C-alpha cells in the first residue's frame, strides 16, 4: 500500500527502517522519529502522542502480527516535516479487521485488560488507516492539531 493520498507526503520522501520483531528492537525507530520531531520544534504533547501511537502499533506488530517471533521483521516508513508527521508500520502477519474491535470505553468493557491500543492511536493521531489485510497501518499527525 502506498502512502494515502490525503496524507500530503510522497512515497519518495519516506525513510524506511527494518527492525527485528522484538520489543527492544522495536524501540529503535521511535527514537529516530521523536528526536527529529523535537529537532523540528514539535512540542512535548505532539511527541507524547506520536510515541504513544507508535508504541501501540509496534506492540501490535510484535505480539499479534508477528506472534512474538524474533525471526520476523517489522518495516517502518516515516516522514517528519514542518507541518506533519507520517508513520507506517507493517508486520508479517495475516492482519485483522479493526472495525470489529469492541469499544474499550463503554461500561461493559472498562475492566477488560486489553483492546485499547487502536483506540489510543485514533485518539492521538489526526488520521489512522489500515491496508485491506490489516497488517499495515498508516498514521498522520498534523502539527497544528491539539492533543485529545
Amino acid at each position, binding site marked *: 500500500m502506498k502512502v494515502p493520498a490525503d496524507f500530503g507526503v510522497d512515497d519518495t520522501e519516506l525513510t524506511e527502517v527494518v527492525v527485528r520483531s522484538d*520489543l*527492544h528492537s*522495536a*524501540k529503535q525507530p521511535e527514537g529516530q522519529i521523536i528526536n527529529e520531531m523535537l529537532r523540528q520544534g514539535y512540542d*512535548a*504533547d505532539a511527541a*507524547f502522542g506520536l*510515541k*504513544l501511537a507508535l*508504541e*501501540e502499533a*509496534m*506492540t501490535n506488530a*510484535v505480539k499479534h502480527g508477528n506472534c512474538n517471533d524474533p525471526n520476523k521483521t517489522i518495516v517502518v516508513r516515516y516522514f517528519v516535516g514542518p507541518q506533519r508527521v507520517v508513520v507506517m508500520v507493517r508486520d508479517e502477519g495475516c492482519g485483522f479487521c479493526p472495525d470489529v474491535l469492541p469499544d*474499550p*470505553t463503554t461500561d461493559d468493557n*472498562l*475492566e*477488560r*485488560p*486489553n483492546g*485499547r*491500543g487502536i*483506540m*489510543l492511536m485514533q*485518539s492521538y493521531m489526526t488520521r489512522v488507516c489500515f491496508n485491506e489485510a490489516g497488517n499495515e497501518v498508516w498514521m498522520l499527525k498534523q502539527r497544528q492539531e491539539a*492533543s*485529545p
Partner: protein
Amino acid sequence: MSAPETRREGFNLSAETKGDIQLVSLSGSASMEHTDDLRQRLLELADGQFPRIAIDLSGLIFVNSAALGAFIAAHRRCQERGGELCFVSPRNAVIQVLRVTNLDRLIPIFPDLKTAHAALSKPKSG
C-alpha cells in the same frame, strides 16, 4: 517494611508498606519493554498480604495501553481479594490517557498520598 526495587533503564517501580496499605511509586517511562514486568510486579503486590494499593504516578512521564492493562489487572485482583487500588497525582499527559480511555471512572484518582491513604483506610460499606 520495604520491598526491593525493580530498576531498569528509564523506568522504576518501588514499593513500601505503611500500615495495611501498599504505596507503589512509578517513575520514568512505562513503555513497551517494561510493561510485562510492571504487570507481574503489580499482580505480586495485589496477591500480597495487603491488597490495598496506592500507586503514586507523579514521576511517571509515559504510559501505554499495556501499562493500563497492568493497572486494570491489578485493580481486579485487589477487588477480588476485598481490597482496592487507586492512583495518586498523575501528570497531565498521563491523566489525559486515563480520561480518554475512561479509566478515571474505573480507578479512583487522588491528588496526594495523604488523601489516598485516608480513602483506602476507610472501611468498605456493604
